[in-house]
């Protein structure tokens, strides 16, 4: 079966008398896919991430990972399959050095020391941090800490990796570093990747986008499909890329832009094709 993460009519609230943060959420994610979950702050997207590895449990409905419904009894098995990188680079760095931190997840799984000594440099290499093995966290930039966090996830070879706003606190350079790292990792493995984000570059890079609004799935589709709904997206507080805005303006002036361009190159090609017809 190819459906790997499934949400079936999932509802959730943090307290008995509080309003629901998720209402009847229903979607699935296939193996090896890269899915971006977007939505304004408070739309329920981070709650989804925490339901996927049993940090929270659904109030009603089912969350399945690799076919199994997540519950109290199998939560530790689920966590072995689902790696997670959080927003604040400092508050997830457990080790006193980079090496200790990358090893933390492996230590928890009881992996023999010799294997860890081999795995740590391997994982650090995958995120281009191999030169920093002995470094202490306060000597690293935010982007470097997040790359170490990704290495810590890779070291335990999970099937899924969730980035829960992992770039939100970084500067543009740090974001760029993480996006490149994630792209490489995704290409070189069959990891299923779920990124929860506001960053337009991250959204464009994904295979599919799930848009959340007020605790409900508001739209599902490819980045191209999502960004063709410019008006509606900005109504729910989300941004669209510059090229999507420009496409809209060109269309309103009667220029027939065929495909929905996603980046500068596609837009320029489109203009090149259109040029003779203008």
């Amino acid at each position: 079966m190819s459906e790997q993460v499934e949400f079936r009519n999932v509802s959730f609230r943090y307290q008995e008398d509080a309003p629901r943060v998720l209402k009847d959420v229903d979607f699935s994610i296939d193996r090896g896919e890269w899915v971006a979950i977007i939505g304004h702050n408070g739309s329920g997207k981070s709650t989804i991430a925490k339901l996927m590895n049993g940090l929270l449990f659904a109030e009603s409905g089912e969350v399945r990972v690799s076919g199994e419904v997540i519950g109290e009894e199998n939560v530790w098995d689920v966590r072995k399959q689902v790696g997670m990188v959080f927003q604040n680079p400092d508050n997830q760095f457990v080790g006193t050095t980079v090496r200790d931190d990358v090893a933390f997840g492996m230590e928890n799984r009881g992996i023999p020391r010799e294997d860890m000594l081999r795995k740590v440099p391997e994982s650090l290499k995958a995120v281009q941090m191999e030169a920093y093995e002995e470094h202490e966290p306060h000597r690293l930039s935010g982007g470097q800490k997040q790359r170490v966090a990704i290495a810590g996830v890779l070291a335990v070879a999970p099937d899924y990796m969730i980035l829960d706003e992992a770039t939100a606190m970084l500067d543009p350079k740090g974001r760029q570093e993480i996006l490149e790292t994630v792209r490489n990792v995704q290409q070189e493995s069959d990891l299923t990747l779920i990124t929860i984000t506001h960053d337009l570059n991250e959204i464009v890079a994904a295979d599919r986008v799930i848009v959340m609004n007020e605790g409900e799935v508001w739209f599902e589709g490819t980045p191209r499909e999502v960004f063709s709904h410019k008006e509606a997206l900005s109504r729910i507080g989300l941004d669209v890329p510059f090229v999507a805005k420009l496409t809209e303006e060109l269309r309103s002036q009667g220029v027939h832009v065929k495909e929905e361009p996603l980046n500068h190159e596609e837009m320029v090609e489109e203009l090149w094709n259109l040029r003779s017809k203008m």
Partner: protein
Amino acid sequence: MELTFKDVNYIYSPGTPFEYRALENFSMHVPSGSFAAVIGHTGSGKSTLIQHINGLLQPTEGTVQVGGFVIEAGKKNKHLRDLREKTGIVFQYPEHQLFEETVEKDIAFGPKNFGVEEAEIEQRVADALEAVQLSEEMKDKSPFDLSGGQMRRVAIAGVLAMKPEVLVLDEPTAGLDPRGQKEMMEMFYRLHEQEGLTTVLVTHSMEDALTYADSVVIMNEGKKFMEGEPLEVFKQKEQLRDVQLDVPEVLAFLEKVENRLGVAIDYRKQSLAELAKDLTSELGRGDGHE
């Protein structure tokens, strides 16, 4: 109040093995009532720079002048208190500085420290709440019961209640969602206009600098790398790329249009609709050869 840096050097831990020069021969001038943006990578000296504006740091060499206040290397500053009342700094993630039981008390904290009278403080709290678009009823709530975005507004209100003439903003939109970022920047711009503030914005966003600032300073490794009117500075694409900074997206795009289609479109802050019009008319002309 105008703001002037003259040949400022700042060295952390001088005379130790950890000695580190964070500012090097730095000069800049921000005229009274204007909006300046400071851009640079983490570690380029931006945060050292802004801490000089209200005397949290004293230059190792050189002079900083804020209105009538002068902070000089090696001289004790007697009017630090008055200077700090006139310069409001909104630090990164300002919500981390909240501590009082109620929103009202927290906003009143600054004015109280500067000896403002009770009745006046009450008025200022109300004004500050209005300026950051929070409702009057908020004032009796605990700041810790609010959402992240609301907490940030309370913290900003606390700075505004000091009635500063110079407002320094250190990445004030970090961590907000796109709508929140836009609302926040528009709020600051409105305040800047209404109150005639001198505003210094530290940002990573070239787009914000282009939209709001009258002048921009690009920092690199503690030195001033470029300076000028934002559009003029951002048109120097090669120089920006030399220090690994992005070019505002619209300029990067027009560069690609020029390279691929041989059509040069001058950007002069026109709207997207106007830009689309420019594009269609330029391309429609179709000078034929490829």
